[in-house]
């Protein structure tokens, strides 16, 4: 069993890896539902996590929900589910309903945020969240608090000035922050080789005086190991780490994109063979934690959950138009 009990070696229980897999499947199924709703004209926009579930599941398991400060990006559906969001919250968001926790319908889907879970509000201009994460890490160091800052972003975004400036400062002050680059090989239509000339995004860490780790992002356990190492290190006061999870974006950039204009179907098909969901299922099966029956029942349960969430979200109330002008500035009673 040596090779097969990798998760035990990593200190993970059987239940934990099965949960991880559950979240990956849930994320995939919610994501697919969002596309269906979009294609049937019911929602305006989808941006997907498909192909990055394994990377996010590995990272999510290494974090302490509610303690650590999270600065996610728009593909982090699976990560959000692991931290406490649900099919329902994200479907509410897809419809832009008042009740959705990210923004009360103000922002596009995928623009996460939730104060009670310490998930900071995100925007669309890429990379702006990276200095925010470093700022929260600075606050942790200043007040000797035990949380870690975790920030994710795409490989294209690692070219933005904000990444560089934030990583540099984090390195100088040895702040408790984990930079998590989800390298899905594309920035919309631009392949990684036209976005950056270095071998690994992780190679950039040396320029900031801290460790960089490139890891197979389709292997959730490997990602868990790398992120756990980074989180532990940060919590121990030993500074930042840049973890790069190499994956592939299995679907178009968003519901407004047509990826046939810039990449071949063969390339996409080949990537689908390396889907982290398949890999994880195989792993669970090989470790005898899983079988077809469990798979079927899982998918049935999740489908019911998603159907219910969809119905709920579809019928949920829109924001009150009169609320448009609220919360530009603090109102009496806010702090």
């Amino acid at each position, binding site marked *: 069993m040596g090779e097969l009990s990798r998760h035990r070696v990593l200190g993970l229980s059987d239940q934990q890896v099965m949960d991880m897999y559950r979240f990956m499947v849930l994320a995939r199924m919610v994501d697919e539902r969002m596309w269906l709703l979009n294609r049937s004209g019911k929602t305006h926009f989808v941006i997907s996590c498909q192909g990055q579930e394994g990377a996010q599941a590995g990272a999510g398991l290494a974090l302490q929900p509610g303690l650590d400060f999270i600065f996610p990006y728009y593909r982090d559906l699976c990560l959000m589910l692991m931290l406490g969001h649900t099919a329902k919250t994200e479907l509410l968001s897809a419809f832009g309903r008042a009740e959705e926790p990210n923004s009360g319908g103000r922002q596009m889907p995928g623009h996460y945020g939730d104060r009670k879970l310490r998930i900071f509000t995100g925007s669309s201009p890429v990379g702006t969240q990276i200095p925010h994460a470093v700022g929260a890490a600075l606050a942790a160091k200043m007040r000797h608090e035990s949380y870690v800052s975790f920030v994710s972003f795409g490989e294209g975004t690692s070219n933005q000035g904000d990444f560089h400036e934030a990583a540099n400062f984090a390195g100088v002050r040895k702040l408790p922050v984990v930079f998590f680059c989800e390298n899905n090989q594309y920035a919309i239509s631009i392949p990684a080789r036209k976005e950056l000339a270095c071998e690994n995004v992780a190679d950039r860490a040396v320029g900031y005086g801290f460790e960089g780790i490139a890891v197979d992002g389709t292997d959730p356990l490997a990602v868990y190991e790398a992120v756990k190492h980074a989180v532990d290190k940060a919590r121990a006061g030993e500074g930042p780490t840049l973890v790069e999870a190499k994956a592939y974006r299995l679907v178009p950039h968003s519901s407004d994109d047509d990826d046939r204009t810039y990449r071949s179907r063969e390339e996409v098909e080949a990537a689908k063979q390396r889907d982290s969901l398949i890999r994880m299922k195989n792993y669970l099966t090989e470790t005898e934690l899983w079988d077809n029956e469990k798979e079927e029942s899982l998918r049935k349960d999740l489908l019911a959950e998603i159907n219910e969430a969809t119905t709920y979200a579809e019928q949920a109330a*829109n924001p009150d138009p009169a609320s448009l002008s609220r919360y530009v500035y603090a109102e009496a009673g806010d702090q």
Partner: protein
Amino acid sequence: MAVKQYIDAIHDALYEEMQRDERVFVLGEDVGVRGGVFRATVGLYETFGEYRALDFPLTESAIVGVAIGAAAAGMIPVAEIQFADFILPAVNQIISEAAKIRYRSNNEWSSPIVIRAPYGGGIHGGLYHSQSVEALFTHVPGLKVVTPSTPYDAKGMLKASIRDPDPVLFFEHKKLYRLLKEEVPDEDYVVPLGKATIRMDGEDITVISYGYALHLVLEAAQLLSQEGISSHVLDLRTLRPLDNEAILTAAKKTGKVLIVHEDNKVHGIGAEVSALIAEQALFDLDAPIARLAGPEVPAMPFSSVLEREYQLSVDKVAQAMRSLAQF
């Protein structure tokens, strides 16, 4: 003459200028192989090759900074910022650099670049794919800021911008891309920068606008004409430099002025137009200078309900015009 959409007019202007002058090239995110996320640069990669339809990494400051450097070395770069909302990382390169290069070098160097960016809301783009950013740049000496509202102008003004020896910010309202078609000449023409144009001649009230809002104004004016109110409508087209003469003439014509824009009101474009009139045509006025603009909130929300609440509409515009007429 061919009937063209706004987006086609943009595309054709790029294509023709690249044909005409091999110093002209486009650069930006997804402008090459993909032909642009709005398809404005489609086919340029195939015709002009990888460098003249240059896919650029996701770095707006470098897009503009590299354009400035290429222009210094003799090229004529047309940079695309994928959404106007994402021009902000490039503000330092635009305002500290492009705008000041001629002045600071005492006319030795210049910055003949164009920066194109789709702006404006109403396409379910939420807070960061709907913004109007023109007012961040109209205050800055050294820049030109243009916002054409028709396919004809879009093509003619983009050509004028590319041929202009100074940096031009060229803002294209996303709602206009496929909203209307009109005849656009096949032969080469330019529409000069800095000139407003009268879109409707009228007697009772003057309405000054630009971009997508202009079309709401024109529709509202049709409505009001049935109520016996005659509107004089001026399309600013260029926001820096403003066409002061045209504004003052239009204001004096009716003595009642309404300025309409999608962007929020306070310290917005309407403020300068109003101040200009208040400074130079005050005694020609029969009513306070009115402004109808977007609300004072950070940006247009995603929810359809909130988006609608944010936006101008023919109704809202007609109501403001009616009030002014009745003043």
